[in-house]
């Protein structure tokens, strides 16, 4: 941290990057888009968390009457959907945007405008889905919306329409981003940055993009079927017509399980950057870390039915999926132990990011092990759809993904803003989070095994569940405090934080050679990479400031443009128009769809036909 004091702030640099709302609406700079992703996702985290807090208030005691049953069902549905699709995924996307080009020594992503498009689609999609609260018709089918409950016959309200249209919109965002990053990582690596020198975060991101590209089409189709059933009276999920209600479950989980690795691998990547830095040792078993991730991703496509052991697939299928599921424990274990041995023999500094990273290693292991317990079908028949499962996925999702992402926030905040976050507040934030999350989720193992089904609005008194639920609720309230502390820390540090140099943590990877924050073009000179940790091996020197603008340096940068925003907006409106169908206004719906489809196509053409940058 010695550098922090001496380092000149970026304001010293001779030019000023454009500021103001318009510059943000039209930006195609991957760093700014990353920032937009980050702040939007954190806002939704507050929302999803408040939904969780209301759930916990309702469950604080037996036979609670804080909210109605219907509201409760909307709350857990939106809580799950929000946390998965509007918090963890976009927060990961924030780091993809911020880090991938910096880590591979590129000046931007392969398709800067497509990148902006992805963000705007995400923003509009998330707003659309949550607009349902305003008309009191928030989705209420559970985050995996099992049919036939979600078919028109059993859910005739707009609730499910908001849900499925919202997910369709968000899917577009993820897919567009995935193609973009795949191309970026394959094709924009600096000289010498061969695949086996790539920072592990970029590797994890790379793997995740393939998971996205292969998993999302499946849920898209599943949702299309549901959409057609609801809007056009098709029969994909109509048991009476001979359809199998389980089709949805299969398609959803073919997407759903890869999805859970989409949620965890970015966090794994961040931790794989943090641990070496603060142990002052390179990552232990780099190659194996890469291969295990690829293996996890691959196996991840062959385990989906472990979410369906209770439907009665028969002994053969149960066995098949039990074994594949257990196998995944092995590559994941390799990661855990490699992390521990990264620290082994190191010189560990317990900074806030390091604390969060270590917490991930410890807490994810708990969730992983309970996962392996679910993997045994006969035992799972006593676990599935109880709070034991809820405990599992909060340990992997909160103890894993969330902890890793917070580590990333504290670790990269200096690179993003040029300021350090407060270690004192950070320490409070961490310890509160750590204690509170265990208070919340550990008791759920018990309430589950004591026979508490999940997604229950109330539980009866005298079933031995009171104490565990009370503790869970208190834990949740404490988490709220922790989160507010974390937000406060981020907010105040933007002004009050100590000035961060290019490499405040003394890290080894390429991104730390750029000034904090990096100039729009990242690297005035495209670096030549000679090792995995160029900053440690003297392959790179840190550039503390970058006085010149891209123009002065003659670096071609993409022009800002508002067009992607419009395409995203019109696409969202086009799908949103479908809602009118169930409001008994089919003609209006069709009119809306056509109008916005045309507008979308026009703005798309005008986007595609304007060159990315000025000729030079």
């Amino acid at each position, binding site marked *: 941290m010695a550098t922090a004091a001496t380092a000149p702030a970026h304001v010293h640099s001779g030019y000023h990057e454009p500021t103001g709302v318009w510059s943000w609406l039209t930006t195609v700079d991957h760093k700014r888009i990353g920032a937009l992703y980050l702040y939007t996702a954190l806002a939704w985290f507050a929302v999803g968390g408040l939904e969780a807090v209301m759930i916990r208030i309702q469950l604080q005691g037996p036979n609670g009457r804080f909210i109605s049953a219907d509201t409760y069902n909307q709350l857990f549905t939106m809580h799950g959907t929000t946390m998965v699709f509007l918090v963890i995924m976009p927060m990961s996307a924030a780091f993809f945007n911020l880090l991938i080009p910096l880590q591979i020594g590129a000046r931007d992503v392969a398709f800067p405008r497509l990148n902006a498009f992805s963000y705007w689609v995400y923003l509009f999609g998330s707003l659309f889905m949550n607009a349902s609260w305003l008309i009191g018709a928030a989705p209420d089918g559970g985050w995996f919306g099992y049919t036939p409950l979600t078919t028109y016959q059993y859910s005739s309200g707009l609730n499910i329409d908001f849900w499925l249209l919202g997910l369709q919109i968000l899917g577009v965002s993820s897919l567009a981003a995935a193609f973009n990053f795949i191309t970026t990582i394959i094709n924009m690596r600096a000289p010498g940055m061969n695949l086996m020198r790539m920072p592990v975060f970029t590797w994890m991101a790379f793997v995740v993009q393939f998971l996205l590209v292969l998993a999302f089409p499946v849920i898209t189709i599943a949702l299309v079927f549901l959409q057609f059933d609801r809007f056009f009276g098709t029969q994909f999920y109509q048991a009476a017509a*001979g359809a199998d209600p389980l089709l949805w479950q299969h398609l959803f989980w073919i997407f759903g399980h890869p999805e859970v690795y989409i949620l965890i691998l970015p966090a794994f990547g961040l931790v794989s950057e943090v641990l070496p830095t603060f142990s002052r040792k390179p990552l232990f078993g780099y190659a194996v870390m890469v291969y295990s991730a690829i293996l996890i991703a691959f196996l991840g496509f062959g385990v989906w039915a472990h979410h369906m052991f209770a439907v009665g697939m028969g002994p053969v299928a149960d066995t098949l999926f039990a074994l594949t599921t257990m196998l995944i424990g092995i590559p994941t274990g390799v990661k855990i132990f490699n992390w521990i041995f990264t620290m082994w023999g190191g010189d560990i500094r317990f900074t806030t990011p390091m604390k969060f990273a270590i917490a991930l290693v410890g807490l994810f292991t708990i969730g992983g092990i309970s996962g392996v317990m679910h993997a045994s079908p006969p035992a799972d028949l006593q676990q599935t759809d109880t709070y034991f499962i809820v405990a599992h996925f909060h340990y992997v999702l909160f103890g894993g993904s969330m902890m890793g992402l917070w580590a990333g926030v504290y670790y990269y905040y200096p690179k993003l803003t040029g300021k350090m976050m407060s270690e004192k507040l950070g320490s409070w934030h961490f310890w509160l989070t750590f204690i509170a999350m265990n208070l919340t989720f550990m008791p759920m193992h018990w309430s589950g095994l004591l026979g508490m089904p999940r997604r229950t609005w109330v539980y009866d008194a005298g079933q031995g569940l009171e104490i565990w639920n009370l503790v869970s609720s208190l834990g949740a309230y404490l988490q709220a405090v922790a989160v507010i502390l974390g937000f406060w820390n981020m907010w105040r540090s933007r002004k009050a934080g100590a000035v961060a140099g290019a490499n405040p943590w003394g890290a080894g990877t390429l991104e730390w050679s750029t000034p904090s924050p990096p100039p729009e073009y990242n690297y005035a000179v495209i670096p030549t990479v000679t090792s995995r940790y160029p900053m440690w091996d003297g392959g790179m020197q840190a550039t503390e400031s970058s006085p010149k603008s891209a123009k002065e340096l003659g670096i071609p940068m993409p022009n800002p443009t508002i067009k992607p925003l419009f395409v995203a907006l019109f696409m969202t409106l086009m799908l949103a128009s479908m809602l009118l169908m169930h409001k008994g206004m089919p003609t209006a719906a069709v009119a809306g769809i056509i109008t916005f489809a045309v507008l979308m196509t026009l703005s798309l053409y005008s986007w595609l036909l304007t060159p990315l940058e000025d000729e030079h």
Partner: protein
Amino acid sequence: MATAAAAAAGVVGHGHPPTTTGLEHRKIAIWAFIGSECMLFTSLISTYLAYKGRSVTGPFPHEVCNPPQCATTMQPILDIPVTSVSTFVLLMSSLAMVMGLAAVQNKDKPGWAGTGWWARIQESSRIWIMMTAILGATFLGFQAYEFTSFVHEGLTIRKNLFGSSFFTLTGFHGAHVTVGVLWLLTLYAIDVRRGLGPKDALLVDIAALYWHFVDVVWIAIFTLVYLIK
């Protein structure tokens, strides 16, 4: 050495650094996209096959449907001869497409195809691109005909599981063809306005890759849906 490399790289500061693989961004993207499309159509086809023979009422693809299962006896609905022709049309469109790409790539060497009227035709990218679009449109025409006649024979998307999964699957493919046709027409417009040459080969190449993929998907559909009873 690092500094030496940096100095060398300094030149790169102006203009774009060469891509790592020497390949074009968009070509990598389109292949990744095609990979993704594999899963999309797999979901559709799997659903169709999973529901094969599970409709509770007719019309059926390959079997006769007799009362009481159907109000009146209904003949197998799939029209193999017609579909075989449309399949052939789509295959030929792929041929036209590759010819079009070759024409664009070789614009800068007039006479590459030899002499005579046939060579002239081969060298005209416009002919081939327009031909591809026309053949694609013809395929769509066949599909429109097929759909309407099915509806007249009482098979709608709501009628039974076969109807739902069949129309959705082939409809999704048809939508892909439609997009392809629009894409080709756009290329044709560009070709007419400023002429497509080797430096635009990529534009045509990615459109071609997409087009051929839509074609191979149909190859699978034709066998799995139409021919296998």
